């Protein structure tokens, strides 16, 4: 996949010294690379999760299977991609400003685990039959907070996650009011009540990825300082 190869090349950079060093230590270029990576991850996840939400067709082979990937509006994945890029860049930035670098479980395996749990939460919300929406929302909220506690455990992460959840829900709400799109069945104040939970979990996940990506820059800069 595109992201994987990018991640690999990114991880290889510190080892193979050379032109990469100058590239990666250049803050702007580094920021751009990270943004692009985060954007593509966001777009990919949006497509996949959207597909997950598409209810199963009764027919086994509807003739337009591939089309259902893009069944939602075309602008949704880019928007989510942009949002994830912003979030992924914002997390390390806030960490730096607060002066408390995130040290908890800074490994790719942990990040992968986080992404998997996030996809799992989406999967559960799409596939599992809940008795009522309140149950669904509560479960998802518990799962999201569990996600934060397992992989993040930083106050700034929690706060930012809450803010993102609130803001994103607000934006969707506005869009719904404007009639750009609508839910199949709004359950609470015209909002699908599980939406904030998903947004919260997504914010945590993208922040996790962004922080991990930012690690490379820190490492290389440190190494460079060391060499000098």
């Amino acid at each position, binding site marked *: 996949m595109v992201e994987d190869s990018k991640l690999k090349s990114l991880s290889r950079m510190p080892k193979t010294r050379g032109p990469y060093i100058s590239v990666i230590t250049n803050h702007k270029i580094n920021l751009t690379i990270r943004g692009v990576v985060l954007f593509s991850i966001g777009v990919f996840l949006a497509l996949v999760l959207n597909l997950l939400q598409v209810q199963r067709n009764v027919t086994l082979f509807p003739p337009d299977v591939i089309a259902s990937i893009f069944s939602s509006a075309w602008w949704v994945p880019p928007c989510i991609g942009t949002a994830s890029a912003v979030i992924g860049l914002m997390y390390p930035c806030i960490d730096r400003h607060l002066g408390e670098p995130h040290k908890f479980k800074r490994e790719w395996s942990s990040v992968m685990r986080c*992404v998997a749990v996030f996809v799992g939460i989406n999967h*559960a919300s799409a596939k599992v039959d809940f008795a009522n929406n309140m149950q669904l929302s509560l479960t998802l909220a518990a799962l999201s907070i569990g996600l934060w506690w397992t992989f993040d455990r930083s106050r700034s992460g929690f706060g930012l996650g809450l803010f993102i959840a609130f803001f994103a829900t607000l934006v969707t709400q506005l869009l719904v009011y404007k009639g750009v799109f609508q839910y199949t069945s709004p359950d609470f104040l015209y909002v699908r009540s599980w939406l904030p939970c998903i947004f919260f979990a997504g914010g945590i996940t993208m922040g996790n990825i962004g922080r991990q990506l930012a690690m490379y820059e820190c490492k290389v800069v440190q190494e460079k300082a060391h060499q000098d």
Partner: protein
Amino acid sequence: MLLSQLIYYERSLDTPWIPPLEPPAYPNGCQVTPRMTLSDRLHQKISGAFYQHGLLCTSYPVPIIFFTAVCILACCYPLLKLPLPGTVPEEYTTAVRDYSPPPSDPQAPQRDPSDRPDWYVGPPVAYIQQVLVKAVVSPWDQSLIPVDIFRSPLAQVFQLVEEIRNHVHRDSTGSHSLEELCLQVTDLLSGLKKMQSQLPEHGCLLVSPGNFWQNERERFDSDADIIRTVHQHESKGLHTSATVKDLLFGVPGKYSGLSLYNRKRVVSYTITIALQSYHARFLSSLHSRLKQLHPSVNCSLRRDQMVHVHFKEEIGIAELIPLVTTYIILFAYIYFSTRKIDMVKSKWGLALAAVVTVLSSLLMSVGLCTLFGLTPTLNGGEIFPYLVVVIGLENVLVLTKSVVSTPVDLEVKLRIAQGLSNESWSIMKNMATELCIVLIGYFTLVPAIQEFCLFAVVGLVSDFFLQMLFFTTVLSIDIRRMELTDLNRCFPAEACLAPPKPSPLRPREAHQQQYKRLRPVTPYTITLQPSSFRNLTLPKRLRVIYFLARTRLAQRIIMAGTVIWIGILVYTDPAGLRTYLSAQVSEQSPLGKSGGLPPLSVFPVGDPESTLTVLPHPEPTPLLENQSQDQQRPPWASQRDQPPGPDNTPEISWIPPDEETWRRLSFRHWPSLFSYYNITLAKRYISILPVIPVSFYLSAQDAVEARHPQDTQRFHSHFPAFDMQAEQAPEPPGKTLSQPDFTLYKAAALGLVAGVILVLLLFCLYRVLCPRNYGQNGVSHGRRRGRGELPCDDYGYSPPISEISPLLLSGHHMDIECLAGDGMLLVSCCLARQIRVWDTQTGDCLTVIPDPGLRQSSSGVWERQERWEPEPEEEGLEAGVGGYPLRRRLLPSRPALFGDQPDLTPLIDTNFSEQPTCLGHANEGARGGFHFRGLLERAYEEHGATAPNIQGYSPSPAPCSPCRRHSQGDEPLCGPNPRPASCLPAVPGDWDSSVWALELQGSLIAAGRSSGKLELWDALEGCLHCSNEEGKSGITALVFLNNRIVAARLSGSLDFFTVDINKPMNLLQYQGTPNRGSMPPSPCYSSDDVICCQLTHSVQCAHQKPITVLRAAAGRVVTGSQDHTVRVYRLEDSCCLFTLQGHSGGITAVYIDQTMVLASGGQDGVICLWDALTGSRVSHMYGHQGDVTSLICTTSCVISSGLDDLICVLDRSTGIKLYSIQQEVGCGASLGVISESILVTGGQGCVSFWDLSYGDLLQTVYLGKSNEGQGVRQLRVLDNAAIVCDFGSELSLVYVPSVLEKLD
């Protein structure tokens, strides 16, 4: 055998020496008890339990792994009951008789519950009734064209469908028509508008080929091109799901016979009716009606089986993409996790163990849940990645990290235990947290989440169980393996060094002959190539292999192949593989073949009673030519094609596979048919009723009448050569019949070819990877192997450039025990207590010390005989004459004597020297002995042939003491000098003790004896300067540095002596040696100085146990002892500076050089590097499995040899083993380093030179031919870079010319 052991053994003969009996103590034992805060008792308890558990796991790895495997299998056993994942439909067959739809209530009592599948409840979606039509134009007329094969048979379908539709069954309950019973369908799906014309809508689901023409005969008749109409909806490419043609025809396309090239001229198709409800009487009446109308005479298809087909849920692409994504994330997670495993022997092995741990814990979880009655309802494939992620690999990694980070010098057991207990608290805490979270999830009361949580809880517990038992044990095994090979950095050279000597496998004679043949003139093969060639002379094939290995080409190709394969799978469809395979199998199986060729349908079955009411069946016409052909066929054709048929008559045109034609269809046939009407078959079943056979026999006239006007036209334009073909037409049937045989042969031939190619490929691979020819004595390899059977190098290097010739110094009669030397002189002492001094330049024996009387008198003869200079031409002559590579130069008559029985002398010697009675025998006077010997000598010279035995006898009294005693006083001691002896005479009883230590400095020999006596001899004149008997305990080691002698004694005491060199007349100095009082000291005139030796200091209790090694350099004396300690003394004031502790066994080897580098090796196989200035331990490495027998340090590496006959070269700064060299048994201790770059090792009768930096074998020098079995046990590198090694009773002096140049 090791030298040290030999010496110990030897010493034990003299003094009882008790080996250490106490068990080895672990110096780091203090680290064993884990340090914990006392406040947290729980924490402590958990740590303690984990510690104990770790010890248990390491102690019994195999039983524990076995136990775990049994546990896993036992827990997975219930999984056998679960249905296998897969989307292939299941079948269940019931009898048609007494059939009633199964009750929809699953709890209803079942007659045969074990037999009945779970899904067989409730009525099926539909009952499928197929009417299989086989039609043939018969007899075939030459005037008919290929279109006639199917046009008129297909035309029959309209009438038949009409018949079926209008069939009404009347009985007492009323009249039933098909309309009542059939499955009513509504609209087609919106996406299938283009198929609207083909598939029925708003009515009975009844499909037949007639649907192509909207069931209207007129359309059919006006259709000019039937085949195009039929194939118009065929999709291109790989496609295994059902096509419209298959759906309507109901038989696979290739069996329908709808082709212009249909040689069999049988057209078969089905009319498929889907029934809503089962009405047995209606169906039987339909059957009998059709049978009545179109009888198939010889049809004996069984009609008693009804097959229920259950379809599983299939995963669509829309669901596949998220699934694939989750799996990709899962693999990324596993990859990033296992990548962190480091510092272990086998990363892959541990990663595999970790994955196995998680997977089998999941399996156990599912198995246990099933065992306790929970049937999984979730889709296993979907929740699996999440379960893995929830359970996680973290604990496993934490464990590995913790164990790996424990001190390396601990024992494996303790390392594991300590690592476990260090992480015990966090592991328990994590597990408790996860359990809590999962339990919270359990209380969401959502069934799916509850089930997931249940699985996760059981999975977590079983994962913990497996981690603790399985993974810990695997980890301990891995760590143990790592300790054994100790971070072995693989140098390419080591690959060829590693294999042990295959010497016993080969007959030595062959090698010797080959050796002679190859090197007839120069007996010593010396090949020292320039180092520039050596370093990178890898053969090309190896380079290719290394290249492949480096780039992981094969791995990548396999990965790419896998990706492509998966891509194809996804492209075809989710269950594509199964379909594809089953299709392949059915195509290739002989049964399918025979089903494809119903062979006898062409044969005009004489069915006179066929009462075709619809179409008048013509009378069987006289035989045509192809019929006559056909008639010859039946006897064998039927045998081949219908072996399983119950009624095996040649007239049968209905064969058993026809009973279930639907089996030949794609298993997606029915789901796709129903899916067009938005009816899913997933998790439901259909019942397929027995097929109703219908046969049509059409006359040629019918066929001609049914023709479309364009048919003939097109036929003639397309097949102008048809007439010619028609003539040959009769032949093809035979051809097609024998086709299966051909395919069989083809398959066999292909298999054979593939097998041969595979064998050849493997052979080539073997040759490439394994270049040695084990079985044969290849010329090129034989030379290099030589006789020594050294671990050879497989590099094809260039021929020898320089030669190294060893000098053999013979004179000792027994094995040489002690060896000392500097650049000029060489002192050796044999087991017979004879000390000889040699000139290292010429190889002359200068002095023989032990037997003054005899030596002196015989010296006139002996000395002259033994002196020789190595002259090249003589050497060549000898070799040329005898073909005998010994370089000992002897008198012309003597080589034969020695050559015949060279072993006798030492043998007899041994007997005599060991006998204490020798003393009595010699009492009669050494003079007699001398005369005797002199006589013998003469006789020996005269009668060369008979002499050897006596000659062997004659020198035997030589080492005995009386001879020496005789010489005391009046006989001069110094052999070669004619002047009277001026040195001190030997002390009586002195010679009874053997020499245990020898040192040489300048021309002074210091000899330490087992009796505790220290003697100073003059090397050149062979006289005793002085001796010191203050200590009673045997001197085990000596050091002679500057003017000081340090003697280590068996009692563990250390004596420091000072050697004073005074002017000759100062006799007072001699009085200083108290034990000499009995003997009147005689002034030594031979040397200018009077030398005396004074005990200056004695450290009585230097060590608790015997001192085993003593080394001195740079003003320091280092002792190593059996008491596990190393002590460093200052040479000046004999002050103990440090006591170095760190070994867990007795010290067996110590090295110190001018740069104050101190290394010590112990019986525990550990090598410690110390800083001799501060006494601190620099590094610590595991080198050997047994004792370290010798140690040498260079500026960059530490070379050690051990009891395991391995020479390890370790990096001095990092302690990493660079490579190791497998030595021959018993030669492990002999090693030396020349000029920091060349390592010399001893082997069986040879000395090998190695490049120290690369570990390449430079050269092997063979010392002699006769003493093949003699191993080189001692090896010294002299100051002039000559190498001295013992070679049985001889000494061998090897010069390395190139090294000499280097030194200059």
